[in-house]
């Protein structure tokens, strides 16, 4: 057997040691890489978990928002919210022919109304809206509503009874500074409860209310008798879901009230209201000398019925309503039923920037000349008439001072700078029949201006 040379043996041993070292080194490097990879994965996962936690926290956090619809804070699941809204009407009224001083040219804060709305447990709403306009404080709305289903909502509190079409339109959306003559004949606000809803995908809206009952155009916070009034309204928009249909925004319906009112001479207005022009001058009132002998009082059944319709297509808008009331009144024990009727038609035309709707115009571009935005301009025309039945004269109302008919013609321009700011200019002329010792009461010509800020 040949001997392995010593040198070769040393080389072999050295190589073996080196190889072993290299393998150990390889193992160590692999392990280090694996450890580092693990650490990177762990860091990535921790970041992922942290991001998930942040997302979860954000998802559960209340949402605060400020938009053209107001300011709100709501829970992440929308079950609870508080919304703060409001509007201000800064008006000017300029009487152009007032030798008999039916009204006073003046600047006034017509409406100053903060609105607080809240929702709890998803379906229970509350709305509170006081009015500080004209330096007085009046609670306009304060009601609680439960939305059990789109077709079944229950409301309790003080709110607009479901009667007059223009009355049901928000004060921020009416096209003239003041509502028209028919609004004289419908209740303003009353206390009671109401069931309402939208059926058949919103094609039919109904409302039925049981309320204290208030005189025409009046607000009430309580009652002076045990009788309660029923108010109801049904309104159809049969084509509302037919996109592109020319009749999509056609609506029509009828409303009415049925109740008893009993007035006393000590009650302001004796349970009966006076009727006002657009300039807010009273052109008709029943006799009232604040004494039992000589004051016409509400004395029994009062009924109202009001067919109504509106229609909007493209740049055109139309609204019309008719109201007929019958009041049972008495004077010195002599009883009579007095019919009063009123109607109006209102036409609107979007000159530029947007299309009219029941909720006003939402300008396509807000006023910003540098960006080419001019807001939206709307032309509005209306004609209306209110007629008090002959039965009222001369016993229950003084024909030498109270007009038996008022006819109003108005034209106006509304410039929507954006959804929140609107400038209103309108001219309204009202002519009368009767109301003067000889002939007719002097016509009223009023120019209105309004700056509206709403949010």
């Amino acid at each position: 057997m040949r001997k392995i040379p010593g040198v070769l043996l040393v080389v072999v041993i050295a190589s073996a040691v080196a190889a072993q070292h290299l393998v150990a080194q390889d193992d160590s490097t692999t392990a280090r890489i694996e450890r580092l990879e693990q650490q990177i994965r762990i860091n990535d996962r921790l970041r992922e978990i942290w991001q998930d936690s942040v997302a979860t926290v954000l998802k559960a956090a209340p949402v605060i928002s400020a938009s053209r619809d107001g300011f709100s804070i709501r829970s992440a699941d929308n079950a609870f919210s508080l919304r703060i809204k409001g509007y201000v009407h800064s008006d000017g009224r300029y009487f152009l022919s007032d030798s008999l001083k039916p009204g006073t040219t003046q600047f006034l804060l017509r409406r100053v109304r903060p609105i607080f709305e809240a929702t709890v447990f998803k379906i229970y709403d509350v709305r509170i809206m006081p009015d500080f306009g004209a330096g007085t404080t009046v609670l306009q709305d304060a009601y609680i509503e439960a939305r059990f289903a789109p077709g079944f909502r229950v409301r309790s509190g003080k709110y607009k009874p479901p009667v007059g079409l223009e009355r049901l339109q928000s004060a921020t959306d009416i096209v003239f500074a003041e509502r028209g003559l028919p609004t004289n004949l419908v209740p303003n606000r009353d206390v009671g409860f109401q069931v309402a809803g939208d059926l058949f995908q919103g094609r039919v809206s109904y409302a039925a209310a049981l309320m204290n009952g208030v005189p025409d155009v009046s607000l009430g916070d309580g009652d002076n008798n045990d009788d309660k009034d029923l108010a109801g309204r049904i309104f159809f928009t049969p084509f509302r879901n037919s996109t592109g249909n020319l009749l999509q925004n056609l609506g029509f319906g009828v409303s009415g009230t049925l109740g008893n009112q009993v007035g006393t001479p000590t009650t302001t207005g004796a349970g009966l209201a006076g009727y006002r022009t657009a300039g807010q001058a009273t052109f008709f009132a029943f006799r009232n000398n604040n004494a039992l002998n000589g004051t016409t009082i509400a004395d029994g059944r009062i009924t109202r019925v009001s067919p109504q319709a509106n229609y909007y297509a493209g740049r055109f808008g139309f609204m019309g309503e008719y109201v007929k009331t019958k009041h049972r009144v008495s004077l010195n024990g002599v009883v009579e039923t007095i019919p009063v009727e009123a109607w109006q038609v209102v036409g609107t035309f979007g000159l530029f920037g947007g299309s009219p709707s029941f909720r006003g115009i939402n300008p396509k571009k807000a006023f910003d000349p540098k960006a080419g935005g001019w807001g939206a301009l709307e032309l509005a025309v209306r004609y209306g008439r209110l007629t008090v039945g002959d039965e009222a004269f001369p016993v229950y109302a003084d024909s030498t001072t109270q007009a038996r008919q008022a006819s109003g013609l108005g034209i106006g321009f509304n410039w929507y700078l954006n959804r929140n700011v609107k400038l209103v200019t309108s001219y309204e002329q009202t002519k009368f029949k009767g109301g003067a010792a000889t002939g007719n009461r002097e016509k009223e010509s009023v120019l209105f201006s309004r700056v509206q800020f709403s949010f």
Partner: protein
Amino acid sequence: MLKRSMILTVGFLAAAGSVATAQRAVTLLNVSYDPTRELYQEYNTAFAAYYKQKTGVTVNFQQSHGGSGKQARSVIDGLEADVVTLALAYDIDAIAQNARLLPANWQTRLPDNSSPYTSTIVFLVRKGNPKHIRDWNDLARPGISVITPNPKTSGGARWNFLAAWGYALRQPGGNEARARDLVTRIYKNVPVLDAGARGSTTTFVQRGIGDVLIAWENEALLAVKELGPDKFDIVMPSVSILAEPPVAVVDKNAGRHHTTEVAQEYLRYLYTDAGQDIIARNYYRPRNQAIAARYANIFPKMTLFTIDEVFGGWSKAQPLYFGDGGIFDQIYQGR
């Protein structure tokens, strides 16, 4: 006039109300824990068909899943669950005690303490078990990376914790100090605490982190099924804990939603042969022994202890180990 007005109004309300209640479909919200997604997905379909055939009523389901403790907190805070199917009885007790949405004796209303299925805690390891993990004490070895969720939010994690603790107590010479030492060393090896069991599975299986996942048996079996037996092995420790996830109708919520009857039937159906079969197919151990025998190859026999035997029940274990400042907090903050 007043009387007529009242009669008309009441009549109108009654008519509107009867229209509103004339419904033929109900929706149940089942608030459950993390790994039951697949189980209830299949079960809900089967129950809806069964109930439709029986009553003509369509049942729609909303499922909510998350760490069991977190889910209980959500129900207490107003999540309107009709039924809860959580990881441990303590979480439903918390709903009963803090929100009074169901009676304190809820567990007596259904068989087997209202636990229609059981499970246990096992180890999921990488294929071939390269770190040679055989039992609980292997998890405490230096260099072993252990994945388990956070016991403060996850019911499964609490079972994991107590399983390790119970193992240590049952070893020769086992006592509280040794158990605490073992569990402390295990948590030193935990690099990531997920909020729930499903999150931990994601960490281990999809993100490739860790050497071992302490997992619900059903979650481990599901992972092997979904990702293939060539990627993971399941290791059964020498001893583990018998987990009994309970179910209950949340009386007040169900009453408000007019779903009490269907909610009760929903839980009772879990005990039927059909329900137990779905349970077994989804890797939960069925209570019905005949069904269990059919799936014996999936569920090997193990030595299991109960929480009552070793810890005196959840009412004692929860505050001691998992309450604020409890043993888990002491262990984890001291890492």
